[in-house]
C-alpha cells in the first residue's frame, strides 16, 4: 500500500515523469494518484484548498469501464455464450438492492410505526449505473410496486417505500381513529391508480371527489403534507422523526470523516467503528447515503 509522493512546489512547466522502462509507458500525470490495488478510502469532498489527496477506487470502476469500452469499440472479443448471469445493472439488481437497503432500516427504532424507507440515492452506491437505476425505479413505480416521496430536505432526494409496507403502516397508524374510513378510501381510490408524488386541488376535488374538510383530515392523519397553496405532497405519516434522526446521523458521520487524519477514512475501518450517539439509523445506512449522494469520494 504505497503512496506516490506529492509533486508540489515545482513550477507548472516542470512535468515529472518516469522514464520508459520496457513496456511500462505512462508518464506520471501532474498530481498524486494512489497506486492501484489500494483499499477503498472515503474522503470528504468540499473545500479542497490545502491538502488535496486524490483517492481512487483501486484498479477501480473507472479503469474497468475504460477497458470495457475499449474492447467494445473494437468488437475484439466475440460474444461468448455465457450462462445466464444476472447483469449488474438489471432490474433484479435494483430490486435486490432495494430489499437489502430496506433490511438495513431499523424498524424498531420508531416503535415500528414507519415502513422501511430507503433513499433513492442509496441505490446508486449499490448499483453504480445511475441512469439504469432511475429507469428501473420508474418502471417499478409505474407498476405500483414502490412509491416515491418527496422528503423535503433536498429537491433531489426521494424516499422509496414498498407500496404494501406503506399501506400497511398507514392503516396501522390510523386504526381506530375517526379518519380511518376516509384514509382507506384515499388509499384505495387515489393511491392505487395514480403513481404521483403530489396532488393538487383540482385533481383531488374533481377527479377523486374529496372535499376541503376531507383534505384537512388527510393532512391531519399525516398522509398528505402541504406543498403550497392548493397542492400537497404524498407523505409517510410520522416521517418527521425519521428525518430528524437521519439528518443528525448524516451530519455526525460526515463530521467523523472530517475530523479524521487527512479527512479520509478506510471504509472497512469505518464499518467496524462504534457509531457515535447521534447515529441512530445505523452506520451502513448512512454510508450508503453518503456514497450515493456523492458527499464523499470513495
Amino acid at each position: 500500500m504505497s503512496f506516490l509522493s506529492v509533486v508540489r512546489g515545482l513550477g507548472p512547466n516542470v512535468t515529472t515523469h518516469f522514464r520508459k522502462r520496457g513496456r511500462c509507458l505512462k508518464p506520471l500525470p501532474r498530481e498524486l494518484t494512489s497506486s492501484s490495488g489500494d483499499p477503498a478510502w472515503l474522503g470528504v469532498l468540499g473545500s479542497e484548498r490545502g491538502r488535496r489527496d486524490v483517492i481512487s477506487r483501486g484498479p477501480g470502476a473507472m479503469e474497468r469501464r475504460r477497458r470495457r469500452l475499449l474492447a467494445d469499440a473494437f468488437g475484439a472479443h466475440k460474444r461468448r455464450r455465457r450462462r445466464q448471469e444476472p447483469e449488474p445493472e438489471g432490474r433484479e439488481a435494483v430490486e435486490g438492492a432495494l430489499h437489502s437497503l430496506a433490511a438495513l432500516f431499523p424498524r424498531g427504532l420508531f416503535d415500528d410505526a414507519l415502513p422501511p424507507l430507503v433513499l433513492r440515492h442509496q441505490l446508486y452506491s449499490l448499483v453504480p449505473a445511475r441512469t439504469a437505476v432511475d429507469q428501473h425505479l420508474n418502471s417499478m413505480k409505474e407498476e405500483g410496486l414502490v412509491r416515491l416521496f418527496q422528503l423535503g430536505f433536498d429537491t433531489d432526494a426521494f424516499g422509496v417505500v414498498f407500496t404494501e409496507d406503506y399501506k400497511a403502516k398507514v392503516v396501522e397508524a390510523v386504526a381506530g381513529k375517526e379518519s380511518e374510513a376516509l384514509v382507506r378510501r384515499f388509499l384505495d381510490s387515489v393511491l392505487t391508480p395514480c403513481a404521483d408524488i403530489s396532488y393538487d386541488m383540482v385533481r383531488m376535488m374533481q377527479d377523486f371527489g374529496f372535499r376541503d374538510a376531507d383534505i384537512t383530515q388527510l393532512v391531519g392523519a399525516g398522509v398528505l403534507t402541504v406543498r403550497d397553496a392548493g397542492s400537497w405532497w404524498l407523505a409517510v405519516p410520522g416521517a418527521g422523526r425519521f428525518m430528524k434522526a437521519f439528518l443528525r446521523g448524516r451530519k455526525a458521520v460526515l463530521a467523523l470523516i472530517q475530523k479524521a487524519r487527512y479527512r479520509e477514512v478506510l471504509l472497512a475501518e469505518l464499518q467496524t467503528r462504534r457509531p457515535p450517539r447521534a447515529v441512530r439509523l445505523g452506520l451502513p445506512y448512512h454510508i450508503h447515503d453518503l456514497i450515493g449522494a456523492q458527499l464523499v469520494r470513495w
Partner: protein
Amino acid sequence: MLGFISARQAGLDDPLRLRRAESTRRVLSLELNKDRDVERIHGSGINTLDIEPVEGRYMLSGGSDGVVILYDLENFSKKPCYTCKAVCSVGRSHPDVHRFSVETVQWYPHDTGMFTSSSFDKTLKIWDTNTLQPADIFNFEGTVYSHHMSPIATKHCLIAVGTKSPKVHLCDLKSGSCSHILQGHRQEVLAVSWSPRYEHVLATASADSRVKLWDVRRASGCLFTLDQHNGEKSKASSEAANTAHNGRVNGLCFTSDGLHLLTVGTDDRMRLWNSSTGQNTLVNYGKVCNTSRKGIKFAISRGCNPEFAFVPYESNIAVYTVYSGELITMLRGHYSTVDCCVFQSDFQELYSGSKDCTILAWVPALREPVPEEDNEKSLPLQSLNPAYEDAWSSSDDEG
C-alpha cells in the same frame, strides 16, 4: 485493429467503422504527454478557447486580463517534442485591447480571416486576423457573458450575444448593427449556442434557471422552454415549474449532430435534452460540481462511438459518455479551476484552459495491446507479434 483493416480492405466493413473505433480508442486513452505543451503567455486565468473549424490548426484563447492569443497547434518540426507556439496576440499594449476580461472568443466559421471576441467591458469586437485590427465593435448596456455565431449559417450572419440584461441580442455582421432582440428570459443570459443542425435555431441559458430554444425567424417568442420534469407538475414545487435546473444554467453544448443538447447548472447537475422536442432524456450523470458564477465552456467529442462529454469539474476535467451517463475518467493536471475545454476532432486532442494561467494539451497515449479481460490464459506479453506494435507516435508529424 488488423482485423478492422483487413475487413475494410475486403469491403466487409464500412470505412467509417474503422475510423470510429480508432477515434474512440484514442479518446479513451487521453492523457498528459511530456512531449506536447502549449506556450505559456497568459498572465491570468484563461476563460475561453476556440479551435478554427476549417483546418483545426489554429486556436484562440481569451484571458481574464483581456488578452487574446492565437496559437498554432500543428507540428512542423521533425521532433516529437513540440510546444504549440503563439503566432500573434492582442496584448495589453495593443490600442484596441479589451479593457476587462474576455469571456468568449470564436473564429469566423467559414475561414480564419476573422474572429470575434466579447468581454466584460460591454463590447463585442470583430477582428481582422491578418492586421489584428478590430473591423467592427458592438456596444451593449451590460457585460457580455457569451456570444456565438452559427457554424452552418449561409442565409444569415447573425451573432447571438448573451449579456447581463435578460434580452438576447442578435447582431448582424452585414449591416453592422443589432438587428433582433429576443425577449423571454428574466435574468442575465449566461450562455448561447446555435444549433449545428438548423441554422435558425438558437439555444439560450440564463441565470433564471431556464433554457429556451428560439427560431430567429419567428416574431413571437421562443419555440419552447426546457422543463426538467417533462411536464410532470407533481415532481417539482410550483415555483420550479418549467426550469431546466434548480440553479443558474451555466453551460450549453449541442452534440455534433444537433439532435441533443447538454446543459450544466449550478445545482451540480448535467442534463441531456432532446433538442427537437425539448424532452429531458433523464440520463443521470451524478454530481457535476459547478461553482462558477459565469458560464463554463465544455466540449463534446465528434466521430466517436459512444460520444464523450468533457466537462470542467473543479480543477479536473470529467469525461462522461453522453448517452448513458457513465463517468469514464477524470483528467487531472491543472492546479486551479478549469474554465474551458475544446476538442480537436481530427486528432482527438483536448485542450483545456484554467485559472492557473496554463493551457494543457491532452493527447491520446501511444498504443498498447488491448487487454484480454476475461481470458486468463492469454498469450504472454513477450510473444506478442511485432506486427501489433504501434510504430506511430502520438504527436503529429506532417508529411
